[in-house]
C-alpha cells in the first residue's frame, strides 16, 4: 500500500467568526488523485485554503509527509512541496504571462522547465508579454497550473480547475492532469464536475457542512451513483 502523504484529521477552520470547517478528516496517498466532492458551500475550497495556509484560523491536524502544516508559517508551506492552484486561478493582472509563470519561487529540484510546460500547455507558448488576465479562462487555468509545476512542488491542491470552461478546454485540462498523475504527482482536487472527476481521480471524498461524510473508490463509483447523487443533490 502506498504511503500516506497528506493526513488531515479533525481539521476545523474559521473565516473571522464564521466556523466553516467542523472536523475534516481524510488522507491522500503518494501518487494519488483524490477529489473532494460536495455541494456549494460544503467546505471543499475552505479545506484547500486551510491546508495552503491562506485560511489562518485553524485547529486540528494536517500532516504533509509528517510535517505539521498548521504550525508551519504560511510562506514555508510551499517549501514542503505543496503547490496551490486557487479557485478563480489567481492570475495577477499587473503581471505578464511570463511574470506570472516565474513568480512562485523554485522550492525544490525537479521543477519543470518552461519548454516542458509549453509542451504540456501549447496555448501558453508565445504569450510571454501578454497581460496575465488577458488570457482566456482556460488559458489562465493552464497558467495557474503551469506556474506551480515550475516550482518543483509534487503535491498539488487544485481548486475547481474546470469551473466555467468550455468542454474542449476541460478535456485539455483533464489530459494534463492524467499526465501529471503519470509523472507521480499527488493531487488533491476540488471539483463540482463529476464526469471530470471520474476521469482523473482514484478516490473521492464527499464533504458536507464542513465534514467528510463519505468516501468512494473511483472503481466502485458506478455502483454508488444513486448515493452520490443524493449527496450532491443532482
Amino acid at each position, binding site marked *: 500500500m502506498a504511503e500516506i502523504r497528506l493526513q488531515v484529521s479533525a481539521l476545523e477552520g474559521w473565516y473571522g467568526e464564521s466556523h466553516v470547517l467542523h472536523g475534516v478528516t481524510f488522507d491522500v496517498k503518494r501518487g494519488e488523485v483524490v477529489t473532494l466532492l460536495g455541494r456549494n458551500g460544503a467546505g471543499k475550497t475552505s479545506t484547500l485554503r486551510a491546508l*495552503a*495556509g*491562506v485560511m489562518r484560523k485553524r485547529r486540528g491536524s494536517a500532516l504533509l509527509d509528517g510535517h505539521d502544516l498548521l504550525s508551519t508559517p*504560511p*510562506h*514555508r*508551506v*510551499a*517549501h514542503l512541496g505543496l503547490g*496551490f492552484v*486557487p479557485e478563480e486561478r*489567481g492570475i*495577477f*493582472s*499587473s*503581471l505578464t504571462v511570463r*511574470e506570472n509563470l*516565474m*513568480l*512562485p*519561487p523554485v*522550492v525544490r529540484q525537479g521543477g519543470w522547465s518552461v519548454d516542458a510546460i509549453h509542451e504540456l500547455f501549447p496555448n501558453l507558448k508565445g504569450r510571454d508579454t501578454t497581460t496575465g488576465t488577458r488570457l482566456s479562462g482556460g488559458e489562465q487555468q493552464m497558467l495557474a497550473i503551469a506556474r506551480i509545476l515550475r*516550482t518543483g512542488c509534487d503535491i498539488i491542491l487544485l481548486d475547481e480547475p474546470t469551473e466555467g470552461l468550455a468542454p474542449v478546454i476541460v478535456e485539455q485540462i483533464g489530459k494534463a492532469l492524467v499526465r501529471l498523475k503519470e509523472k507521480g504527482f499527488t493531487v488533491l482536487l476540488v471539483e463540482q464536475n463529476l464526469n471530470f472527476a471520474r476521469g482523473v481521480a482514484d478516490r473521492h471524498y464527499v464533504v458536507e457542512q464542513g465534514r467528510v461524510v463519505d468516501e468512494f473508490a473511483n472503481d466502485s463509483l458506478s455502483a454508488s451513483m444513486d448515493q452520490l447523487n443524493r449527496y450532491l443533490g443532482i
Partner: protein
Amino acid sequence: MTELFGVPLAVLSGQVMIGLINGSFYALLSLGLAIIFGLLNVINFAHGAFYMVGAFVSWGLLTYAGVGYWPSLVLTPLIVGAFGAVFERTMLRRLYGLDHLFSLLLTFGLALALEGVFRWIYGAGGKSYPVPPSLQGVYNLGFMMLPVYRAWVIVASLAICLVAWVLIEKTPLGARLRAATENPKLVTAFGINVPLMLTLTYAAGVGLAGLAGAMAAPIYQVSPNMGSSLIVIVFAVVVIGGMGSIMGSIVTGLMLGVLEGLTKVFFPTASAITVFIVMILVLLLRPAGLFGKDK
C-alpha cells in the same frame, strides 16, 4: 534681453529651474509614498518627517563625524531605512488588519514626535549644509546660470526615480511586489515571505525619503519643520498621479514643480495653491488620478 510672453527669459528659466528642483523632491518623496501605499496600504504621514530626519542625519554625519556628502548619500538612506524597518516591525505591523485610519494616525503621530524631538534638540532655526566641493560652481547656459549642485540634484533624482521604476516594473523582484500588492495571501502561499517584503518595502520607501533629505540639505535649510511643509504638497502629488502609481508619482512630481514655478512668474499670488487647484480638478474629472487605474 530676450523675452517670452513678456517675461525675461532668464527669470522664466530660473523659475522653471526652481520648479524642477522642487519637482525632483516631490517626485522622490511621492515615489516612496506610492510604493508604500501600493504594497502596505498605509498612508505614510511620517514620510516628510523621514525626509527631515534624512537631512539631519546627513548634517549630523558631517558635523559630528566628519563624514562628507558622498558617503552620507549611501549611509543616510541606510540609517533612515533601518529606523523605518524597526518602526514597521514593532508598531506599524500591528495595524495592517485594521482601517487605513489607524496607520495614518500612527504615522502622523510619529511625524509629530520626530519633529518635536528634533525641535527640542536643535531648535526651530535651520542648519546649513555646505555644497560639496566637487559640486560647487555654476554652468553658464547662455540664457541663465545653472548652479552645478542643482543640476546634479535634478539628474540624480531623475536617475533614482528611473531605477526605482525599472526595479518595480521590469524585474522579478518588482513582479513579486506587484503580485503581493494584488493578492498577498496567494503570494505567501507560493512560498514568498510577504511580511519580510513589507518591512523591506517600508524601509526602502522611507530610505528614499532619507536620501531626498540628504540631497536637499545643501539647498534648503536643515530644519525640523522642513518635512511638514513639504508633505502636504507631496500627498497632493500622489493623489494627482494616482494612488500607488509609480510612474504617476514621478511624472506628476516634476510636472507640478514646474507648474508651480511658472505660476510664480505669471501669477505669483496663486503659486502656493496651484498644486491644490490641480488636485481639485483631477479629483473632479478623473478621481483615480492621472495615471491611476479605476478599481
